[in-house]
């Protein structure tokens, strides 16, 4: 049996954080107003944030760690939602 060599495993994750629909997104509204001033037709704009995480370890573990970080620190469930994505 071939011995599997374990390279140091690094996994990148992206966390998209958006304000909840029920919350007035003041930044999105301001960008929208500026676009209107620039002559664009009414455009819906919402502004969120994006966080990249780089974690070491087996992919499953890394993903659950990333999930936990996003859940408990990166987003505030009262006012935001998040989507976790695996990169590369």
């Amino acid at each position, binding site marked *: 049996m071939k011995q599997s060599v374990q390279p140091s495993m690094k996994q990148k994750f992206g966390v998209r954080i958006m304000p909840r629909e*029920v919350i*007035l997104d*003041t*930044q999105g509204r*301001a960008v929208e107003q500026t676009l209107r001033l620039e002559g664009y037709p009414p455009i819906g704009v919402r502004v969120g944030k994006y966080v990249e995480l780089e974690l070491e370890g087996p992919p499953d573990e890394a993903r659950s760690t990333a999930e936990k970080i996003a859940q408990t620190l*990166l987003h*505030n469930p*009262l*006012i935001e939602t998040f989507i976790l994505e695996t990169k590369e």
Partner: protein
Amino acid sequence: MIGIVRFPGTNCDRDVAQWVHEQGDSYKFLWHLDRVADLSSFDALILPGGFSYGDYLRSGALAARSPVMASVREYAERGGAVLGICNGFQVLVESHLLPGALVRNENLRFIDDWVELETVSERGPWGENLAASPPTLRLPIAHGEGRFYASDSELNRLEERQQVWLRYVDNPNGSRNNIAGVLNEKGNVAGLMPHPERAIFSWMGSQDGRRFFARGGTKSHAGRG
């Protein structure tokens, strides 16, 4: 003795110290890295305003996870009096010691102004003095993210349980139900966006900040609960 909690970026700590001193109380500063095993010798803890951790991620979010906050949590759970002012309020909300969230002002502006407040609840270590006449308070605000948000069901719960502490007479930032300050369920943890410590001498424009303290300081509240 009142404990004043400092985070990197706290900038109202000296003002709060002066406020406490003016009421005849002594104070001690606590640093964000201090994991103090026992805070029970303090009559109250105050989290002053500022921009803890540069307001990175969300206002108060990183400060809420600092070592000293574990000590503050234990102190609050034992019934100790805790007050958060402005960014201190944001830290308490992010720590889940107080309900709701504080989001960006509706008009997108950082508001630096005077506001009129009405006291809704007399509960809590700082509430009973405020409820005495006159019925309203005049205090300054200075915040960009002071819009109090809670879901409909949460708001109803807060109103029913008398956890709304202070309301703006004329809502400056879009806070739901005009809320300027809230209490936890037990009433020993309180937070407000206005700055009582900036209203203690007549030359400041108001002395209503003095009304938060009972005559003889907060000592009468020591170890309550």
